[in-house]
């Protein structure tokens, strides 16, 4: 029997908590609401990790189904969204392992250890540089650029900067230490910046150009 205090406590909780309670009570439409709320994020994360559209679709579906089945295991002390993201990240990595049979896949892949080097590229960007491209050109540039990052940097950047997880949540989701997340985030940001500079730098004289292909 809920007490007045516990009801008051629930009112202050995240809106997902009420939806989850409904799902647990058998209201499937409440789960649909959770799916609609987070499907874009989960699909993006899966696509960033697997880099394959079909895999990302499968991962998204499997992650939502798994979360549904395991809802009883969900502890209210972590956010439903970060719990869901953790499932999707694990599903994505499993999918990658299947594709690359015999090859280990982990978020530690391709991480070189050089730290703290000062960027050399001094080229400033044009004001609002993205306006020099149409939507599909820009999306292609952004996709190509982020796909070129080492996987361990890419996942951290996506979770932290695109999907808005905190450093702590990112560390917990990926099983990394907080310093490791911070160090990867800095390098991911700097590498992306440098790569985007090819497309976004201010126009120079013809002699100076020729970086971008």
């Amino acid at each position: 029997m809920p007490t007045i205090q516990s009801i008051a406590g629930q009112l202050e909780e995240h809106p997902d908590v009420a939806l989850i309670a409904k799902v647990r009570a058998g209201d499937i439409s409440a789960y649909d609401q959770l799916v609609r709320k987070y499907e874009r994020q989960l699909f993006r994360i899966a696509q960033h990790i697997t880099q394959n559209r079909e895999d990302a679709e499968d991962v998204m579906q499997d992650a939502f189904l798994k979360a549904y089945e395991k809802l009883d295991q969900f502890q209210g002390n972590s956010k439903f969204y970060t719990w869901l993201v953790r499932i999707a990240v694990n599903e994505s990595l499993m999918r990658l392992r299947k594709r690359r049979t015999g090859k280990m896949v982990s978020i530690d892949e391709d991480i070189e250890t050089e730290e703290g080097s000062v960027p050399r590229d001094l080229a400033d960007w044009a004001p609002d540089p993205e306006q020099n491209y149409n939507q599909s050109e820009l999306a292609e540039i952004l996709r190509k650029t982020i796909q070129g990052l080492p996987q361990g940097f890419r996942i951290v950047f996506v979770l932290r900067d695109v999907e808005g997880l905190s450093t702590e949540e990112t560390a917990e989701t990926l099983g990394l230490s907080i310093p490791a997340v911070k160090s990867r985030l800095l390098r991911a940001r700097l590498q992306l910046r440098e790569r985007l500079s090819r497309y976004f730098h201010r126009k120079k004289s013809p002699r100076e150009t020729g970086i971008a292909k």
Partner: protein
Amino acid sequence: MTCKEFLALLDDLIDGTVPAETRSELQAHLGRCPHCEVVFNTTRKTIQIYRSHEIYELPSGIQERLHAAIMARCKKGC
């Protein structure tokens, strides 16, 4: 403050997690180092661009397929 020291705190400056005193030191460095100013502005812009552009659109029909799969699973045991 050197460029390397600035860079070590770049993320904290971007994320707004530096104490006021450090922040003014970082801003003083920005005021006299055009190199770091470019790095700071363009890194911030990089994040903003990735945050504000959808680069992977949700495939059409995926919501219906997902809903059907959940309903099918639900019928089996919920």
